[in-house]
């Protein structure tokens, strides 16, 4: 079964527009003007069971609105939507038993009571049988290393501790689909790594589908093979992370430190005809820009290594983050 199937999914909001000044306020009182905003504009999205997908976009691109429709919080204005085989808003109570939700900025846990009490309450809410509950909880406590936190009230936990507990809270009923909204925001590297490992594990073991929204590109690199990118309510890219990099990372950069100063014209002459560009960084430092992704570094080296003595060399991949930034700056032309 498919985890998510959306066709032409749309959400519009009516926004009340106020006119400027006191006179405007009077006119507003009598005759309000509304403007319709399309937060999500006819999105098609299909996610198979067991996929880990990153859902990214700038602030205001429509990410949260989509997530809220997918989780049953909001009713779509138009379009078809089936998540885990349910209509999320109409069959909300049955549907939400099959999903888990972690909203980074909002806690699922009760602020004043001990963590384990929150878990117990959620067990009741989701009607999890005792045996399953114990087995799942023990396992998660071990992997996420939260055994020592169970009897502490949530308000006393650090952010990293709380996030790990949130994950447990979202998975107590073993949902088939997990929504994560900024799960690693503000966490240190070790906790991030711990959480990512845990997510990979539950994905592998139980085939849990994960839909992740994040600003942290390293989350995507560590977890997701597929990226859905959103801009102004529309999907502008839906495909593999690798393809995204290949199409957008216009080649790598190679930093050289040479034994002696070499004329740029000499380097250029020796590599003439290749799709590359040389840049001088210092007396003996030069940077090689490979302008096409299929140009191998070794080909370039073969041309120059006999004539130029290289002391040190470092290959720099273009980071996904740079790619994403570039796409938002320049707009998507590929895809």
């Amino acid at each position, binding site marked *: 079964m498919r985890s998510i199937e959306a066709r032409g999914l749309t959400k519009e909001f009516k926004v009340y527009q106020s006119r400027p000044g006191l006179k405007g306020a009077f006119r507003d009182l009598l005759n309000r003007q509304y403007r319709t905003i399309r937060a999500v504009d006819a999105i098609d999205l299909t996610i198979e069971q067991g996929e880990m997908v990153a859902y990214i976009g700038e602030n205001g691109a429509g990410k949260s609105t989509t997530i809220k429709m997918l*989780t049953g919080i909001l009713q779509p204005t138009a379009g078809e939507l089936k998540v885990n085989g349910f209509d999320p808003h109409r069959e909300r109570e049955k549907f939400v038993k099959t999903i888990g939700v972690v909203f980074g900025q909002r806690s699922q846990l009760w602020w004043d009571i001990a963590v384990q009490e929150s878990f117990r309450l959620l067990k009741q*809410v989701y009607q999890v049988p005792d045996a399953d509950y114990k087995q799942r909880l023990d396992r998660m406590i071990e992997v996420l290393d939260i055994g020592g936190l169970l009897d502490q009230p949530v308000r006393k936990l650090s952010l990293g501790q709380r996030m790990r507990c949130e994950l447990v809270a979202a998975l107590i009923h073993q949902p088939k689909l997990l929504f994560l909204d900024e799960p690693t925001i503000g966490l240190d590297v070790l906790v991030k790594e711990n959480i990512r490992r845990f997510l990979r594990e539950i994905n592998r073991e139980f085939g849990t589908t994960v839909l992740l929204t994040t600003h942290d590109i390293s989350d995507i690199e560590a977890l997701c093979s597929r990226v859905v990118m959103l801009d102004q309510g529309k999907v502008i890219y839906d495909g593999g992370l690798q393809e995204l990099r290949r199409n957008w990372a216009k080649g790598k950069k190679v930093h050289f430190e040479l034994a002696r100063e070499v004329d740029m014209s000499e380097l250029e002459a020796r590599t003439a005809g290749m799709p590359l560009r040389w840049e001088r960084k210092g007396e003996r430092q030069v940077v090689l820009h490979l302008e096409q992704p299929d140009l191998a570094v070794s080909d370039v080296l073969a041309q120059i290594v006999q004539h130029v003595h290289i002391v040190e060399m470092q290959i720099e991949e273009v980071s996904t983050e740079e790619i994403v930034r570039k796409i938002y700056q320049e707009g998507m032309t590929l895809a």
Partner: protein
Amino acid sequence: MFHLRLLVEYFKQYMKTRMSYRGDFLVQFISNFFHQGLNLVFILVVFQHTPSLKGWSQAEVIFIYGYFLIPWAIFSSFLNLWSFNDRYIIKGELDRVLTRPVHSLVQVIMETMAPESLIGVLTGGIVMGVAGWHLDLDWTWYDPLLFVVFTLGGVLIYAGIFIALTSISLYTDSKSDIQPIMFNISNYGRYPTNIYHKIIQFTLTWILPFAFVGFYPASYLLDHGEWKIYALLTPVVGAAYLAFGIFCWNRGIKHYRGAGN
């Protein structure tokens, strides 16, 4: 059944929370106790100076007031919706509620309940008892039963009206001042309705039926037969208003726009 078990679970957690702040709990308990005691004295003193009203003796007026306190106390223990707009709409906690497999209204009720308000039942009971002692009331075996049914009916009327009002928050996140106004109107229910103008009588019976949360049932218990039909209608009116409140709520949830991030 599931909801009842859940309610008990939430109640236990609520008590644990309260008791985890030990000092606070003790202080609250004592201050609550004194507050209620003072309230009681105040009520009794004020009503000592109330003359009889249009055929109602002083003790009867006090009795009606005592009765009036009971549905209100139960209602405000379990439907503590006053801060709904702030907490659930503006702070966005309704988003979380909507991702859990229990009816949203039931969850809100369980999360906001304040069982300590139940002490008002005791106050009301004492006021009723003191007044009833002065009156020579004729209690039959089924009167206590009717008393319970009337009280529940009254709670449902409050619930229906205030749930409907709270549902307004689901359409707009601006604050409305209608709840305090409604609270004031509800106070009209604690006096015999035949002292009011016809229009007000009609309003309190059929539009904002606050006569059913105090006067009608209490008058029946006072052996005033004239309002017997109305008194017996209390549970029906309660069910109807609750249904209306839930209807408004469910519609509102469809309209809910979510909190901005």
